[in-house]
Structures are given as C-alpha cells and as structure tokens.
C-alpha cells in the first residue's frame, strides 16, 4: 500500500479519557469500533481508501475485537455483505466512493433496504464532489430517497462525525433501515480531535459466533409477494420511526439568532462554510454563534417535518443550502411548508448556483443575495451587500493573472502505463487512428496531454463493453483500455464474457501493474502478493484462456517497439474475434518503495548495486521536444539552452528519474534523436567491473577521450 498506517492503528486503540487526533475518515474508523461492529467491508477509492487500508493494517486489533474485514472486489459485493444484518443482530459497515460506487452497489442496496435490517447497517460514502473530484458529478441523495435509506451528512468536525456514526447504527436498528453517511473529500481529510471511547466488541462476532442459523422467514426476502408488504413497511413504518428517532436524539441542530424573521437551512457538511461566510459579514462569530437562526441538517434525508415547521414558523424567508442538483432538500422543504400552510418563502438555487462546489466565495455571495431578496428587518442589507462586494472584488483584482498552464495529474515517473500509450501513438502513425475506449484508473491520465487518447469513458471496467456497438459500426477495430483493477472489478464479466458470448471483435489492452494503483496500490486478485504475504493466485492470462480467448499476447509494457508491433498486428489481423494484449509492468511506485530498501541493504552489505539514470546531451538536443510529446514523464523536462547560438530550451532529465528505460525505447522506436543516453553507476563494483573499466579507460585515454581521471 502507498501509505503505512502504523500510527493510525495505535490511535484506533485509544480508550475512554483519551483524545483522538487525526483525519476524518480515520475518526469514522475509530467510531465503527466504538460502535461494536462485527464486520466491515468496502471497495477502495478516494476519499475513503484509508478506511479499508487502516482496517487491513489493524489486523491484530480487529482479531481481538472479532471484527471480520473483507476487501471486496467491487462495491456490489461490499453492499451485498450488509445482507448479514437482515437476519442477524450484527452491526456492519461498508464503504466506497460515491456516486460511482453507489451506482455499482445499487442492485444490492435496493434488495437490502426492501426487507430491512435487524442489525445496524451503515454505508460510509466518500462523496467525490467538487475540487479534486475524479468522477461524474451527481448526488447520492437520490439513492437514499428511492430506496428508503437514511442519509446522514454530518457537520465536518470530528465530534459530530463520530456521533453520527454511533447514532447511525442506532437509527438503523430503530427504523430497520440501512443508513448512509456521506463525507465530502475535504471532510474525509479534515484533521481534528475528539474524546475517544473504549472500543466495543459486537454482541456476536468472529469470536462469539451465532449458534443457530436464522429460521426460514419469507418476509426477509426481497421477493414477491412480500416486496409489496415491504414497500408499505418502508413508507408507513420505518420512515416515521426514523423521523421519531431523529427528533428524539436531536440529530439535527438549531442555532438560535436574533434575526428571527429569516433563517438558513443547511446540510451539515456545508454548515462550516455558511458560518464562516456569516462571520466574514459580521453576522456570526468564530464560535458558531449566529445572528441569523440556522437549522443544521445532519440528516439530509428524511426531513423531520415537525422540527422544520417549528424552525420556519414566523419566518418570512429561509435559504436552503445544498450542493449539486436536483435541489431535493429545497423541494422537500417547500412541500412541507405548503402542507403546513406556512407562508415562509423558500430560497435556494437562485441566490446560490444550481451546480458546482459551494466554495467559500460562492456561499458568501449566495448569503448576500439571499439577504437582498429576503429583506430582514433587523439589519442594514445595503451594508452587508457592500461588504460582500468588497470581499469578492478582491478576486477580480487577481484576474490579472491569466493563462497559467494547467497542471493535471499525470503518470508517475517510470510508470509502466506511459510506454503503452507511446506505443499507441506510434502504431497510429502506421495504421491510422481508431476509436479508443478509455476506462477508469491511472491509465485515464492518457486522456490528457501529451497523449490526448480516449473517445469515451463509461465507468470502471466498462471500456470493452462500451466498445461493443462501436466495433460493429466502425471501419477500424476499436482499442479498449482496461486496468487490472477494472478487469476484476467489472471488466471480466461486463466486457470480456459479453464480447466472447456475442462473438465480438476488437482489441482489449489490459494494463497489468499488479495493484489498484490509482486508489493507493491496494491488493487485488492478480496481485503478486496479498495482505498476508501469499499470492492470491488468480491470473488474468489463465482466466482469459479459460474463458476461450484465442488471440492473447503478453508484452512487457516498457518494450515500446514490440508493443507497437503487437498493436499493429492486432489491428490489422484478418482473424475476427477479441484480441487481448496484456501490458505487463509492475506499478513503479510499489517497485521503487521495494527496490530502494533492497538497494540500501545491499549497499550496506557491500554488494554490487547499479543505479540507472537517463540523460540528454544538451549539445545534441535541438529543442524540438518530440520526446516529451511521446512520453510526458515528470522527470523529462526542459532547461534553458546552454548554447549561446540557440534559444529554444533543450530537454533534460532531472534527478527523480528511476531509469525505467522508456526514454531509450522511445528514442529507438520513434527514430527520434541520438541525444539520449543511459548512465549506469555501479556501486561496490566487482573485480570484473573494475578490470573491464580499467581496460576501457586505458584505451580511451590513449585516444584523448577523457579529460579527468574520473572517480577512481
């Protein structure tokens, strides 16, 4: 894994009277243990990868507590795990990145929510919305509403987040419904502190197992005819039970304020942004006291109608602050107020934008616009507006700094996937362009410069499936790119099996780097190792052969020329059917972490170590940068031309180079220029190294080729 969580694992052991310091997502993990979970599962993805990672590393602690941890192969299998809570009084939690993970899990979620649960079932959603997001921008709220799953959206401070986890289980049990808890990216990574409690062992666990299997109960199946009964239960019994619990336990908060003719209704996750905006307009203080009354919805769904009515009674207007579209909360508030025949005007999308992240300046602007419309009696709106304008005007001054080049994420130095795209570029020169069906994973960085490759992305592991109809209607064979993570997540069945079953055509390029690299290099079925050290033993190649793939080549991913030739062959082959190329090369981040340690040990022991580095002769490079356009490596960059007669910057390789060999491969395969060289520094050279070197030195010196003795 990318990060070690040794310290964090220690924090998970804290007991009553101690203070937990750390990140939001780790506070959630601690709260799960304090709640007595019996099982945890999930699928990694920013921003919730750390939850699973730390659980995996906390093996000993979890064994003591009897918690079963499953690193699922996709979100559907994680969601289905919660099925254990339908028949047994087991508390369980699963996690994934939303919206995409929730989409994958949707089938299991519907079938879980319909019969309902006996043990508390909690779903931790990493809400990948706004700055830094890598997925489609949609709201998870829709899933909560349609499946009658309650949705918590806690205020982003650790005590509230922890309380919501603990109360989430109780809410789930009190209403027999699963509960989702959504955390935005920044909330997952927010640091803070809370007073820890001692961890609890679940009533039943891997230590104290349930003696008797559940008795047969048709009502617990999501199957007709009981699905009709279950539908009624969800709406008529579980919803009111949930609402009663929410009110009784005061999950939502009301901040009182003297400007009581107006109010703000805000989802918990956005409460701090609103309070800060008010503080900057001198309408609140740093400690959360506000002049405008605020209703903080730590529960985004369902609303508690009586609380809402009580808050809105006597108010001329309220502002609903919720991110994303549709404006579910605004609609629900409006309906509730109409039902109660309250004449409070509801503002939301209008003063606030319909789409996009509610950053601090967006909220500030929105609150000011709301005040202008709502005209509260106790404040000089013109003053507030002028203040907001003055604050925001500072941004305009900054608009003088323009056309800054973007810096999107890219393949790491030495990444084994980069050479594959260089090979595609080279193959394109000979066989022409074709449709490239891209996928989710590190390889999707190829959609950015310098490669700009990819015509569609339809979801994780979906590239081959999304090329099915393209292949049938396009003159050239499409190329589908898929990572090994995507292959096991979904691609094997949705893509490969479907293609073979339908006797499809096309080229599938699988990036076999051994880990789900983009999410932090977690293990997966074809990893060379697993969390207990042994290899999981599932092979992509064997799996494909067993399924009946005939045309299958495994190519070392750094061999650009061979990869380009193989691609060409796959594109031009007269043979119909799926052609699979496995690009084999271990994730360089993982490799470097291992090799650095190994090399240090060898150096210590006096054993021979070779450090390889690529370089560019700056007097041979002419500054065209073709090499960069075919690579985009972070270690291959430019520097001022040292030649007094030339002006264009020349290519250069910086210290971070790991000597992956791509520069040389590209120089050869693309017939670029002769300015690249590979330098190998032999540390602790053997006698043979020294002899060979000494002989060469002698000859070279004889021909006047060295101006200094070098390192002797």
């Amino acid at each position, binding site marked *: 894994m990318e990060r070690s969580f040794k310290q964090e694992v220690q924090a998970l052991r804290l007991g009553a009277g101690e203070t937990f310091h750390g990140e939001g997502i780790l506070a959630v993990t601690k709260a799960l243990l304090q709640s007595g979970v019996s099982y945890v599962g999930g699928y990694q993805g*920013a921003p919730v990868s750390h939850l699973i990672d730390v659980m995996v590393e906390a093996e000993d602690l979890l064994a003591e507590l009897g918690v079963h941890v499953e690193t699922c192969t996709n979100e559907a299998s994680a969601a289905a795990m919660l099925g254990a809570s339908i028949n047994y009084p087991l508390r369980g939690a699963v996690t994934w990145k939303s919206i995409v993970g929730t989409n994958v899990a949707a089938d299991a979620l519907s079938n879980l929510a319909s019969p309902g649960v006996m043990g508390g079932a909690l779903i931790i959603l990493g809400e990948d919305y706004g700055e*830094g997001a*890598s997925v489609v921008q949609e709201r998870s709220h829709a899933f909560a509403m349609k499946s009658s799953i309650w949705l918590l959206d806690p205020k*982003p*401070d650790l005590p509230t987040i922890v309380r919501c986890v603990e109360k989430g289980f109780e809410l789930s049990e009190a209403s027999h419904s699963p509960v989702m808890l959504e955390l935005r*990216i*920044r*909330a997952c*990574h*927010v640091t803070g502190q809370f007073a820890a409690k001692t961890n609890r062992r679940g009533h039943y666990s891997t230590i104290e197992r349930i003696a008797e299997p559940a008795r047969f109960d048709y009502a617990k199946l999501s199957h007709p005819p009981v699905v009709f009964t279950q539908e009624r239960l969800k709406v008529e019994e579980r919803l009111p039970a949930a609402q009663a619990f929410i009110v009784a336990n005061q999950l939502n908060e009301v901040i009182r304020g003297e400007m009581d003719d107006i109010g703000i209704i805000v989802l918990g996750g956005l409460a*701090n942004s609103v309070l800060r*905006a008010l503080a900057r307009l001198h309408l609140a203080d*740093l*400690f959360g006291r506000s002049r405008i009354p605020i209703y903080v919805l730590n529960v985004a769904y369902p609303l508690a109608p009586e609380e809402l009515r009580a808050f809105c009674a006597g108010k001329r207007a309220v502002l609903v602050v919720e991110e994303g579209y549709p404006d579910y909360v605004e609609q629900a508030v409006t309906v509730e107020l109409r039902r109660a025949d309250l004449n409070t005007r509801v503002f939301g999308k209008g003063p606030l934008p319909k789409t996009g992240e509610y950053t*601090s300046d967006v909220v500030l602007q929105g609150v000011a616009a709301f005040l202008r419309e709502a005209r509260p009696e106790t404040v000089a709106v013109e003053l507030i507006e002028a203040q907001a304008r003055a604050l925001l005007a*500072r*941004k305009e001054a*900054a608009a003088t*700094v*323009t056309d*800054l080049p*973007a*810096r999107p994420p890219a*393949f*790491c*130095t030495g990444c084994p996937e980069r050479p594959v795209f260089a090979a595609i570029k080279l193959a394109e020169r000979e066989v022409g362009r074709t449709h490239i069906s891209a996928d989710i994973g*590190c390889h999707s960085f190829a959609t950015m*410069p*310098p490669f700009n490759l990819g015509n569609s992305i339809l979801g994780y592991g979906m590239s081959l499936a999304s090329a099915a109809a393209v292949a049938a209607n396009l003159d050239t064979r499409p190329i589908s790119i898929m990572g090994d993570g995507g292959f096991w997540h979904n691609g094997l069945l949705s893509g490969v099996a479907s293609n073979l079953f339908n006797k499809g055509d096309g080229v599938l390029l699988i990036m076999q780097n051994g880990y789900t690299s983009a*999410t932090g290099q977690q293990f997966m079925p074809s990893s060379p190792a697993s969390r207990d050290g042994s290899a999981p033993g599932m092979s992509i190649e064997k799996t494909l052969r067993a399924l009946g793939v005939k045309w299958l080549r495994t190519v070392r991913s750094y061999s650009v020329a061979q990869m380009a030739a193989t691609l060409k062959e796959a594109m031009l082959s007269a043979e119909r059917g799926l052609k699979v190329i496995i690009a084999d090369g271990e994730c360089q981040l993982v490799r470097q972490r291992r090799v650095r340690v190994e090399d240090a040990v060898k150096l210590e022991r006096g054993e021979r170590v070779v450090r390889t580095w690529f*370089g560019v*002769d700056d007097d*041979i490079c*002419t*500054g*065209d*940068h*073709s090499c960069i356009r075919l690579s985009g490596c972070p270690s291959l960059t*430019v520097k001022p031309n*040292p030649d*007094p007669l*030339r*002006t264009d910057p020349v290519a250069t390789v910086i210290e971070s180079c790991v000597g992956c060999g791509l520069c*040389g491969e590209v*120089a050869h395969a693309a*017939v670029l220029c*002769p300015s690249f*060289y*590979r*330098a190998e*520094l032999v540390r602790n*050279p053997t006698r043979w190294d020294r002899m060979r*070197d000494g002989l*060469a030195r002698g*000859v070279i010196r004889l021909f006047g080729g*060295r*101006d200094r003795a*070098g*390192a*002797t």
Partner: protein
Amino acid sequence: MNAPSRPITLLIAALGGEGGGVLTHWIVSAASSLGFPVQSTSIPGVAQRTGATTYYIEILPVPWAELDGRQPVLALTPGVGDVDIVLASELLEAARAIANGFVTADRTMVIASSHRHYAIAEKMAMGDGRHDSTRLREAIAQNAQGSLIFDMEAVAREAGAMISAVMLGALVASRHLPLPQDALVAAIRAEGKAAAANIRGFEAGLSAAARASALPGAAEPEKRTQGGARRTRSLEREATRSFPPEAADMLVEGVRRLHRYQNRAYAKLYLERLKPIAAADHAARAEGRLLRETARHLAVRMSYEDVIRVAAAKIAPERIGRIERDMGAKAGERLRIVEFLKPGLDEMSQILPVPLARRLLAAAENRAWLRDLHFTMELETTSMSGYLRLWGLAKLRALRPWTHRYHEEQRAIETWLALIAEAAGHSAALALEVAECARLLKGYGDTLKRGRSNFALIEARVIRPVLAGQIPAAAGIDAVASARTAALVDPDGAGLSACLAEIERRTEFRLAAE
C-alpha cells in the same frame, strides 16, 4: 480571555509527491502540541499524481484551556481575501493561488520557491513554451502584502532534504506563523522517519530565508561558449574589426564553432557569407540586428547535426566527467554510458559521397523496406569497442565536404542567405523575419524532415510572394512571422496549413479590393 475574531489561515500549494501532506502534518502537530485549536484539510485524493494540489490549515493561536469550553468553527475551504499565508513549492503554483483570488494585498504573505517545474503544456511545445517567470514574480509583487521568495529546491538539494522541510524553514523565518521554532522542530523529530534529513532541510531553509534578499534571483544559467584556438585568431580579429560591433560576439562564437566543427577554411567561409548580409544590414539601417540574427542562425546551420558531429559530441573529453558529476559518482564507483543510435538510410546518405548517396536514395524511392531500414544500436561509450566505433565515426570529419548532406546543406544555406539579402531590399524587418525562419530547421530524422518541409512551404507560399510583390510588404512581415509561429504549434502541420490558407485568403481579398 478575549479570543481573536478569526484564525490564522495558511494555504499550501504543492505538486503531488512533494511532501505537502507531511509539511501540513508538522504544522498541525506543532499547533496541537501547544494546545491550539487547529484544522487542516486537503484534496489530494490518492490519485493526484504529480498534479497541482493544495492543503489548507486554520490555527487559532489560543490554547483550548482559555476558550472556556467554546468550540471554534473552522472552515474547510480557503476564502477569497481571507488567507494570511500562501506557501508554494513552486513559482507557477504561487501564481495559481493568486489567480484563484487567495492572495490579497491587505493580508497575504507569499512564501514561494522561485524554481520552475514546467507543466506539460510548457514542455511539449515545439519551440519555447515556457511561461515567463518574470511575469509570475511581478504578479506576486503586485498582489501580495509581502513575499519571501528563493530557490527552495536548490537549497533542498544542497541540504539533501525534501523541499517540504525547506519550506517549513522559510515559513518560520517569515515570522508570520504563530508557532515557535522549537515546537516545529519537535514535530519533525516526533515523525521519526528521515528526521535528521528533515531537520537539515528545515535549518537550511531557515538560514537561506534570512539571506533571501541577498540571494541571486533566477538568472539565466550561463551559456557554454567555445574557447578560441590559435588558428582562428586572425579570423576572430576580422570578425571584430570588419563587421559592426553589435554582432561581434556572435561572429566570434560562430568562427570558433565552425573551426572546431570542420576547419579554418569553413570558418572563413562563414565570414565570407556574412559580408553581403552586413552590407544589407547597413543599407536597410538594421543597426546590426539583421547581421547578428543571421550570424547566429548561420553558425547553427553550418554546424548541422550529422552523425559525425554526434559521434564527436559523444566522445568529447569533458562529457564523461560531466555525467559523473551529475550522477554524484563517488570514489571507487564505476560509470557506464550507453547511447541509443538508430542510423537509417538518411544517416547513411549523410556520410556517403554524393554519387553513391544519390544512387542509394534513388533506389529507396520505390522500396519502402529500404526507407524503413534502421539499425538499432545500443553502444557503450565507456567500453573499448563502443568508444572506438564512435571515434572512427568522428574521424570522418575530414571527408565531410565530399558527403551528400554537406552539398545539400550548403545549397540550402545559399538560397536562404539570398532570400535574406533580397528581403533586406524591402525592409530590415522583413529580412529579420526571413532569417528567423531558420529556427524551423532542427533535429534529426522525422523532425528534420518536418522542419524542412515547413520551411519550404513558407518559402514558396509566403516569402517568395512577398518578394515578388504579390503580398504587400507591410502585411508580408506579419505573414512570415505568423506562418513561422504556426509551424511550431503542432507536429501534424494543421496549424501551418490553416495559417497559410488564411494568408492567401487575405491576399486575394486585398487584391480583389484593389
């Protein structure tokens, strides 16, 4: 006690993988150790590989104990006009914080490293795509309340530490952070991992910051000029005496280079070729600019990159030592240098005598396999056989004047010089633009072919029509410049085709209007 009305806010801008998370952690734990409410957030995801990323910290510099149980509400996103310190690991990222509105003159202290880590768009440009660093520095000066800027990467490299440690040192030195130095040092030590290196980096940052105003700015690194030789002395004298002084240094450099490239006669030819240009420069009142630019390009063109020159550069005596230094080779370690050469038909014809090369090229005309024929070679310069092969190639220098490439190049150079002289008859500006077109001719293999064909296109469809009066001279200057720029937009030539079409459309329009 009365708490302040707002926390101290700090925005860290960094690139993925630079240790911004560790830096944030140090600051947060130091604040925590003093009992201050503190909160940090970030948006790294685990996937922000090498991309721009930010970390945001709020610190309330009052111990919890003095807050009477009140809990401050800390924000998760920085506010426009609400950031006290921007700490950037790189100059462009500091400017990005300004563009996002987080740097304001009434509040924000900018602490940034002056080095550049070029973005992909800057690196992949066919010519020079680098963003102007001076503009970035000016933006900081204009928008920040104060700034502390020095090359933190260089300091980190010297100290053998991560840049994040140097950044922390600079932050403390700025005195804008309400945390004492020893709390931060303790935070670094508590981390354990690489503590010694990080303390080194921290202290290096601290002391470099103190000298920051005295540190040299990001000056252009020195140019590597050629040393003179006894045999070129008279030519150098001629270059300085018989030509305008504005171009002297360029001419001397050219003479030395061409002497080293071929021989004294070739260097003399260089000066001979420049005489008509000097006259044209004078006549067009170009004040030496035309001569200087032409001299610069001519020296480059005459020392064109054939295999002989490449071989000579690869075995240059100072090269191995330079690479050893770059790699930080220590005593007793051995270095091997391997070159990647892939000679093909072009490279062969370069060193074959004219008639043989012509026959070979003619044969290749109808034979694709011959055109595609390349010999992939990985050649170890530090081995006996590798060195000797390169040495042998370099020795072909004496035969160069009889090679096919030599003849081709000289003809093309003469044509180009004639164009410049003729253009100077119209205006100095036009001649300068024509001279500057030599910039397109560079590189090897496909790059060189593309450059030549672009040059030919511009010559035929812009330069010649301008000289023939088909395009008015005033519009012609602009046309040549834009065509040249367009040729450097993309390697597929789409930019140039569009530009040429536009020039022709305008010309027709103008003619029709007349």
